[in-house]
């Protein structure tokens, strides 16, 4: 453990402030190898897209980074880094009478008597994702898919994390709302310098919003700038001979 700490400090001093360094990470779940020897690093303020076919282990990789699943290899976050996470397809139980306000209060230590400052902060975060204050009184389970995903972003942003981990932020959302969510993420990254790690199916998003892309299919396939590494050969290796599939591909869309 002591060795790891020393290594971490020396690495961070000399390189251009990496927020995350991953080397040789493997995950075995129920005796089956899900990820093998994954290595990459993420610098401060960068947007990294993680792509790969279904079952490639993208979500597992995010979970391993968060310590939610056991892994071998080394995962080193910069010291004191504050992480926000939005999981894939999280639906709160309808039988719990939880309001939006209470859901956001999970992030406040004062659950029973929240401060005025905390509410001012919430109002600000909600306005960034385009949600009105009135939504605070609604039940979380009554929100539409798009509203809920915006809430999740606001939720993850509450407390200003340095890194946001998003697992397919637009799964199950209509195309218009999807576009908005990506532009919100992009804005956050530019204005606050938030580092974004994003699992996505959509290659057009990858080209438009991320500086780096990590392609995996249980193993590392490629890592680098999208223009450099997403060659037709790579895409074949990731998605097979039939080529990758463009989700909701729409050539008329612009940012």
């Amino acid at each position, binding site marked *: 453990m002591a060795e790891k700490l020393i290594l971490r400090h020396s690495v961070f001093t000399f390189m251009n402030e990496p927020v995350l360094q991953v080397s040789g990470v493997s995950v075995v779940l129920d005796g089956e190898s899900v990820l093998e020897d994954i290595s990459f690093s993420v610098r401060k303020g960068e947007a990294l897209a993680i792509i790969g076919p279904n079952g490639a282990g993208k979500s597992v990789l995010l979970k391993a980074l968060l310590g939610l699943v056991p892994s071998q290899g080394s995962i080193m976050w910069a010291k004191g880094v504050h992480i926000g996470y939005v999981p894939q397809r999280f639906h709160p139980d309808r039988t*719990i*009478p939880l309001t939006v306000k*209470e859901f956001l209060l999970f992030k406040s230590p004062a*659950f029973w008597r929240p401060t005025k400052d905390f509410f001012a902060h919430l109002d600000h975060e909600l306005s960034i994702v385009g949600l009105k204050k009135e939504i605070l009184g609604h039940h979380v389970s009554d929100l539409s898919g798009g509203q809920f995903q915006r809430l999740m972003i606001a939720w993850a942003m509450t407390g200003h994390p340095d890194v946001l981990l998003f697992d397919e932020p637009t799964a199950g959302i209509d195309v218009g709302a999807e576009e908005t969510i990506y532009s919100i993420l992009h804005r956050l990254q530019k204005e606050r310098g938030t580092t974004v790690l994003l699992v996505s199916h959509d290659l057009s998003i990858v080209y438009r919003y991320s500086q780096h892309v990590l392609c995996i299919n249980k193993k590392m396939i490629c890592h680098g700038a999208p223009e450099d590494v997403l060659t037709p050969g790579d895409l074949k290796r990731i998605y097979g001979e039939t080529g990758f599939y463009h989700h909701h591909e729409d050539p008329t869309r612009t940012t």
Partner: protein
Amino acid sequence: MDILFVQALLIAIVVGAASGAVGAFIILRRMALVGDALSHVALPGIALALMWSLDPFWMVLAFLLGAAVVVWFCERQTTLPAEAIVGLLFTASLAIGILTIPDHEILESLFGGFPKLPVSELIFILGAAIGITVLVFMLSRRMLFTIVSPELAKVNGGNALVGLIVLLIFATVVAIGIKLVGTLLMGALTIIPAAVAKNVSPSARSYIVLSTVFGAIIAGAGVAGAAWSGVLPGPTIVLVGIAAFLISLGFLGRRRAGQ
């Protein structure tokens, strides 16, 4: 006023509040039946205490806390549904209890009564019940967060032991309420106030508060009713609770119509 009645009323109000508070989380974790069955483990504890001429209270507490750990462990470690294990373990407890507890003690063990307690035990029960209620409120955010999303709670510094904590708190509440309400019905005292509160609460915070308040009112009213009509307090508390539940169904209908 009869001293036994006052004692029972005091216990009912504070234990009712504590059961209501922890019951709110038992219901949300969908452990209502597990909790109910858990309370039966008190029976072998009572039997053993009677056999060794010990105060049943401490033996019951030890058995319940032990059972809470077993349930928690089974829930995590086996692929069998928790209910199956709990069903096996606790019907066995009931069987052992019925066969080993002397006949004249069995009715009181199962359905409670107006307990004659030494002052020290009364003070302990009152203190424990108030302490538990405060503890539940202090842990509310973390427990609720973990129930809503264990993953997000873990990423945000949550505690994997929340399930165990809920069970241990529950076991303690059952132990302190069992002399009044009885082993068979103690589970009901944790389930009913939360069920009533859920029907009338617009938010999670009001649900926890109302469950606590309803627990105190239902148990207090049950004891008063039992003393007035000269019957056992346990079943009376349950029937008062059921009446409150039926009334709350009317609120549920009105809230649905208003939405």
